[in-house]
């Protein structure tokens, strides 16, 4: 799966958790926090992505990411490591 495809999945998960956000307004450089996601929302987005991608990744892997790009990168690595 390409990073572009994973970014699409992340966007879907963001909109599920933050319904006020327009999917087309989400940029890969955005931080979830700046989109209005609180700490629990951010974990919900991450777990939503893992579920959509059928991945099981320890949450610690997402500890140091600062924006959606970071999330996409980790998910991409895990997808391709399967």
């Amino acid at each position, binding site marked *: 799966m390409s990073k572009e495809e994973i970014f699409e999945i992340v966007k879907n998960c963001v909109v599920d958790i933050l319904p006020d956000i327009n999917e087309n307004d989400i940029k890969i450089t955005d931080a979830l926090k700046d989109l209005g996601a609180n700490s629990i929302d951010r974990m919900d987005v991450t*777990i939503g992505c893992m579920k959509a991608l059928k991945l099981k990744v320890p949450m610690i892997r997402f500890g140091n990411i600062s924006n959606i790009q970071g999330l996409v990168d980790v998910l991409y690595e895990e997808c391709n490591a399967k």
Partner: protein
Amino acid sequence: MYYMKNVMQNKIVISGMGVVTAGCNNVAEFKDSLKNGKSGIKKVMYADDGKCDIKIGALLGEYFLGSDEFEKYIDIDASLYSRAKKILRNTSLSEKASVMTALEAWCDAGLYKFDIDPELISIIVGGSNLTKKISFDNHDSFMAEPCYLSPQYAMKFFDTNHVGILSELLQIKGEGFSVGGASASGNMAIIEAMRLLRYGLSDICVVVGALSDLSLMELQSFMNIGALAGKKFADRPEEACRPFDEQHEGFVYGQGCGCLILETEESVERRQGSFYAKLLGGGMCLDGNHLTNPNKDGEIKAMKKAIDDAKLSIEDILYLNAHGSSSSLGDNTECEAIKELFGEHLKRMMINSTKGITGHCLSAAGVIEAIASIIQMNDRFIHDNINLENPIDEKFTLVRGKRDNVDVKIAMSNSFGFSGINTSIIIERNF
């Protein structure tokens, strides 16, 4: 200590009200349903292939979920509206009901207009095990893949998430907690708030009787323990809840939530606010019994304690909003308790049960019925005991048909819960 000087000194008033029940999204609609004796009980469909015995209930349903009731707050207080919008983005049914009733009560009291020290405002949420349905709904997917469980669940299964949500919504920074007393939780929350205000620990307390969002498992357990109606009147659901009628056969599950703003008289005077009623007193006691059966002596004691606390005598009580859940043993016991306590004075009293209209809203019942009592006293009517055809006791002075132009100054409202928890409160209208 400072507050000990003020013990029992502060008079408590009710300065705001908010409510949702099946078919009613606010106090005005609730008032209409009381006046019209309109039951919110209907046939309900659960996705259980008909295996469970739960066929009727008073659920909030689409009328509440599809309501644009919330939108009016944008014109009242934009920052309150925006906080509420953020919170409502991701709330359970029970939390949404708490937010909606708290918004109504808070704005009704006009509290958004005042700069009140947030540390002098508290929150008490009545109810425990409020989100059983969320656990139930998540069970299968959790067993399949535990790691995909939503992290939100860690907050949502705590009843105190209601406290957190309301404190964020209303920017309240005094005390906050939830109290559990089964079906008496609402009255218990009111009584605890009254004590907090009397002690001078807060000026204002937001009291919520929260919606018990039960799953089919809890409802079936009520059926199996013999507490739930729905057998004789399965095809006529609006007739199934019949407190104090010979054909009563159990309670009907109702979804609902109520919020009262309790305030010291001094606080409401300071801000030149108005109020609906005074909370004169309350009483609570236990039966020393963990089972579901009620106890006449415990019920008498709770009512007596409330009367003593309010510094009244039994002759002052003209209207009684009974617990009256429509369960056979519960109704009979309460009837006997009221007859014994009030004796000859009973002839002058009017008694009804709001549960015929709302179903049994469990944790929320006490707050919803306090609101019903205030509405009736202030609007000078007493609502009908709907479905009452053959009273279990002709001497028990149940209202037959709506009574208009009544002059009731003081109301008593009972709530009794499983595990022998008895509560009663006394409210006085404000004119």
